[in-house]
């Protein structure tokens, strides 16, 4: 085989392997990745919460940065609930009704993500609490229905 065709076939083989492994993400991987995404959301919420509690001053750039972080993590999380991932090798707090109510679950996740996107364009301090409240409502609504209690 020429070097060129050797490289080419290796590249194709790697591409196929990557595609297969990405398409067939295991439940365990999905659980781990989505929990990581939610931790990213939590980090963003902590920073925004500090502004809400007036522990830190209102800063439109800080708000935009953390709101974007939350929105990005929610975008990732949306893809990490494959069928069967209500169980895995690590503990998950995802309730089985995520898959029986999948349309409503998707809707809630997307509207929460939308609230995070809207928060990115808040430039005035007065507009911040209702916009953050709307995001918090989204988190809460979804968790109330689709997340098992932590204890």
């Amino acid at each position, binding site marked *: 085989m020429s070097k060129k065709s050797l490289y080419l076939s290796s590249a194709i083989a790697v591409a196929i392997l990557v595609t297969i492994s990405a398409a067939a993400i295991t439940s365990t991987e999905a659980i781990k990745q989505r929990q990581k995404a939610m931790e990213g959301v939590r980090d963003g*919420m902590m920073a925004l*919460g500090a502004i*809400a*509690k*007036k522990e830190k001053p209102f800063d439109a750039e800080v708000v935009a940065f953390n709101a974007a972080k939350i929105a990005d993590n929610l975008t990732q999380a949306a893809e990490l609930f494959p069928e069967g991932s209500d169980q895995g090798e690590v503990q998950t707090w995802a309730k089985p009704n995520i898959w029986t*109510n999948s349309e*409503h679950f998707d809707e809630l996740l997307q*509207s929460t993500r939308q609230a995070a996107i809207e928060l990115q364009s808040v430039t005035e301090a*007065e507009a911040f*609490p*209702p916009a*953050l*409240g*709307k995001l*918090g*409502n989204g*988190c*809460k*609504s979804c968790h*109330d*229905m689709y997340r098992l209690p932590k204890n």
Partner: protein
Amino acid sequence: MAAAAALFVLTAARPSGRVLPAYDPDPARGEEMYHVGGCISCHKASSISGVTGLPTGAAAFKTPVGTFWPGNLTPDPETGIGSWTAEQFVDALTRGVSPEGRHYFPAFPYPSYRNMRIEDLLDLWAYLESLEPVHSPGRSPDIPMPGLARRTIAIWNWLALGEAGFPPDPNRSEIWNRGAYLVNGPGHCGECHTPRNVLMIPDQGRAFAGGPHPRGDEGEVPSLRDLEGRGRYSGVSDLTLALQFGETLGYDKLSSGGMADVQMNLAMLPEDDVRAIAEYLLSLE
């Protein structure tokens, strides 16, 4: 017999014949009233929706008296309020009577809404009329002897209702008065937080003192009196944050008994209004 006939006539619901003032309504302020009033929390489409979605009223509302299905608030002419007039809407919210001349059950908190200002009611009406009309037929309440029960509401109203409206206290600040109005009017907090007697009439002498949950929920409704003295909240800013963000910022006891819906609705309000509510509540001794 004559007494029964007289009672039958006297307990019929009549339109008030009120004349509304000339007023240019503001649907944006109406939307604020919609959130303070918590309309979506009872008039929501199904038990799985939170504070988003249209108020088509298909979700059941269970009470110890029976099960109610709050009406469709979208301006659908057949199944919603699309064919109502502004006068009929104001009558419904302040006197608890329907356009067909029937008494609403006070599971619908018109005893509190009757304290609302006419401008706020008309703003709310304008907001509801701006919603997308959705065809969603209502259901009659599932209670014993509904016809007779409706007539007895006239007597209940006579016993329970005070004068409509909530005049400001000139000795208090504007912010306090705003909070007092929001809590006693559209916020209808007393409907759960004020204890009721055996006829389910709220005991205004013990306003906001808490007690058994009138909806029959488990647990007691907490008292809102002396919140700071009892160490529940450290001040106006603390309570304001709790009302706006609830459990998202780690406050507890803001999830059960209907408080989740309350908190989610309050989260949509301008901060000044939530602060006013907090200021009023913290002044209760």
